[in-house]
């Protein structure tokens, strides 16, 4: 069952993406794309739940593909984000087309690249082979490049070029890291088949050559860290996320960054084993995380574009996840919990920003004022999503940040605590100010009536679903979910 399921998950999205693109009408293309993502989501949820109820990881294709608790944790999050974004895309692109900003050709391009990106990310999550994991990440870079420049404006082309060059070079560094990792077990003379298999390397990590593994981890951190958007390698992120259409931005921030972070997570037990648990690798991860939080906080204060604001929030939150992973133990649990919370919040925020951008015909925060009067449901959405992102209770991110604070205090990591609180407080104040002006700022009554948008059923459905999900995840986490996240954390040496 697992063999067929895993192969289906990898191949189906790209095949269905190509088939969806054959349809003539844009609405048909987008709805068929949504249905194929729905099928993938159902299969992914079923397989992941099976892994959490069963105890052993599932292997397929001579153990090149596998599904263990860590990948079974990430897989449903990814498919849920893709599902929500595909649902949003149907309504969003319909409006873009009606305003002559996009044509059928771009919708076809979207459908093909969307399916390809989903396949590539699933390959990353399901790979046991570290080299194939790298191939998947490089494939996501190449396939998502043209999603950014779907509307070929000068700015989107600039963003696309920056993204492709910076991320390709970064992922090239990650490949050097992968080669160093393979070189670190060269002296063990493993069979060719086993030489880059994560399951095998994890058990042998204490016998790895520490010099090679340390060099490898540095390259992995900088390389995959570029794709994650950790500062100072984050320069492509605000441009790419702000210029891409909103469903694509939601997918980028909602999961693509997490896919790269997942790759770094896979290397944590290897470096810890090779350095005999000294925490050398974890310290580096923590430093990159803290730098990301501080730099993003600085940029958020002066931001004027709502999508760039959300992009810098992504840098901040991936920095928080990196700090959590760098603490280990309960910090790893908090990081994984935060992964889920951030993905949902960020996708939700990009949906709101995207629709408000269509209503106001601009993404400038100064010009998006009084959204509660102009488009009430999306005004509510942007306010709730930004509240969630800055860590306001009762939304989920408040709980995961609290868990992280607790982990920092328990481990006595006070300098991390200080920097984290400083960064979070700065972001809280500036982002809240932006959120309040966008939702309740002064707007000319005439202007408001002119651009007033009557929302349709699908918009209410999406917004209410996201708010409920964020509140439930914040207020009530069932024991089985806590246990599941903890077991996923234990896969990479964390958990409590």
């Amino acid at each position, binding site marked *: 069952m697992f063999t067929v399921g895993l192969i289906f998950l990898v191949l189906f999205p790209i095949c269905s993406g190509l088939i969806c693109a054959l349809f003539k009408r844009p609405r048909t293309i987008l709805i068929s794309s949504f249905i194929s993502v729905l099928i993938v989501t159902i299969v992914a949820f079923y397989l992941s739940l099976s892994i959490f109820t069963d105890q052993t990881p599932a292997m397929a294709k001579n153990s090149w593909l596998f599904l263990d608790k860590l990948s079974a944790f990430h897989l449903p999050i990814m498919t849920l984000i893709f599902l929500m974004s595909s649902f949003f895309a149907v309504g969003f692109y319909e409006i873009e087309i009606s305003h002559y900003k996009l044509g059928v050709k771009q919708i076809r391009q979207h459908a093909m690249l969307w399916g390809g990106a989903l396949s590539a990310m699933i390959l990353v999550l399901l790979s046991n*082979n570290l*080299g*194939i994991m*790298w*191939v998947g990440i*490089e*494939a996501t870079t*190449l396939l998502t*490049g*043209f999603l950014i*420049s779907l509307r*070929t*404006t*000068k*700015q989107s*082309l*600039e*963003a*696309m*070029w*920056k993204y*492709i*060059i910076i991320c*390709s*070079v970064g992922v*090239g560094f990650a*490949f*050097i890291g992968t*080669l*160093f990792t*393979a*070189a670190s077990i*060269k*002296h063990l003379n493993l069979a*060719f*088949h086993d*030489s*880059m298999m994560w399951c095998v390397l994890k058990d042998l990590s204490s016998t790895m*050559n520490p*010099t*090679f593994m340390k*060099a490898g981890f540095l390259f992995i951190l900088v390389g995959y860290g570029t794709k994650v958007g950790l500062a100072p390698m984050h320069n492509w992120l*605000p*441009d790419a996320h*702000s*210029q891409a259409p909103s469903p694509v931005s939601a997918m980028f921030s909602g999961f693509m960054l997490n896919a790269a972070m997942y790759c770094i997570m896979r290397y944590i037990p290897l470096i810890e084993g090779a350095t005999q648990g000294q925490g050398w690798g974890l310290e580096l991860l923590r430093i990159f995380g803290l730098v990301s939080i501080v730099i993003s906080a600085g*940029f958020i204060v*002066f*931001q*004027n574009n709502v999508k*760039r604001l959300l992009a810098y929030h992504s840098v901040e939150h991936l920095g928080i996840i990196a700090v959590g992973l760098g603490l280990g133990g309960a910090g790893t649990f908090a990081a994984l919990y935060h992964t889920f919370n951030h993905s949902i919040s960020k996708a939700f925020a990009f949906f709101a920003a995207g629709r408000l951008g269509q209503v106001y015909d601009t993404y400038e925060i100064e010009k998006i004022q009084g959204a509660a009067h102009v488009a009430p449901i999306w005004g509510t959405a942007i306010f709730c999503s930004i509240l969630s992102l800055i860590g306001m209770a009762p939304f989920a991110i408040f709980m995961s940040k609290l868990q992280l604070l607790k982990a920092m205090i328990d481990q006595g990591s006070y300098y991390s605590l200080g920097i984290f609180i400083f960064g979070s407080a700065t972001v809280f104040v500036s982002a809240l100010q932006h959120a309040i002006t966008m939702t309740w700022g002064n707007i000319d009554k005439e202007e408001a009536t002119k651009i007033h948008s009557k929302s349709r059923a699908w918009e209410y459905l999406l917004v209410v679903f996201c708010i409920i999900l964020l509140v439930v995840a914040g207020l009530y986490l069932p024991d089985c979910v806590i246990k599941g996240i903890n077991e996923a954390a234990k896969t990479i040496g964390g958990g409590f």
Partner: protein
Amino acid sequence: MSGFLDIIIVCVILSNFALLGSGRIHIHIRVVGMQGLLVGFLPILLGPIDQMSRNIILSLVSMGIKGVLFPILLFYTVRTVRIRREIDPYVGYPFAMVSGIAFLLISVWLSGKLVPAAAVDVHVFLLAVALSTSFVGLFCIVSRKLAISQAIGYFVFENGIWMFGSELVEGIPLLLELAILLDVFVAVFVLGIAIYQINKRFEHIDVTKIDSLKG
């Protein structure tokens, strides 16, 4: 065998200097193609001896993609954007050549540091040349102003990584090697189409003038 390897090493070093010292795009593309052919021999020379059929397949595919297809696709891109020369780069050509020497020296020092840590016999100078090729590729991305030069720099960087991998890691499964080559092959298409779209919209491919997104 070792003599042939030494010839390859020397030719790669010379090709790096040709890349650094010239402003003509068609020379850059020929250098990338030649490097692709040269490093394509490495699986046969350095691969596991008992898997010669795997090594030969890999060499042929690698030389075909990097040595033949890359130059064809890059020349096609250059023809569509009608560029012949690099615009004054940030770093002048003589200084770039001196930087190339510096990269080589740093790479020799670095590989000297790495090699004693290895438990098996590693060709130190090949490792050094691989590292210096990667540095040269990165230098081209950073110091050149045309989008096509950045793309060429990326492929030289990839050649360096390929050499590095051939020397440091013995048996990567053939499927994985082919998947990596496929990725790089798709990259050349993607970069080519991107350059074409940039030229169509901006009517130039000078990346210093494509910098409106700030903050």
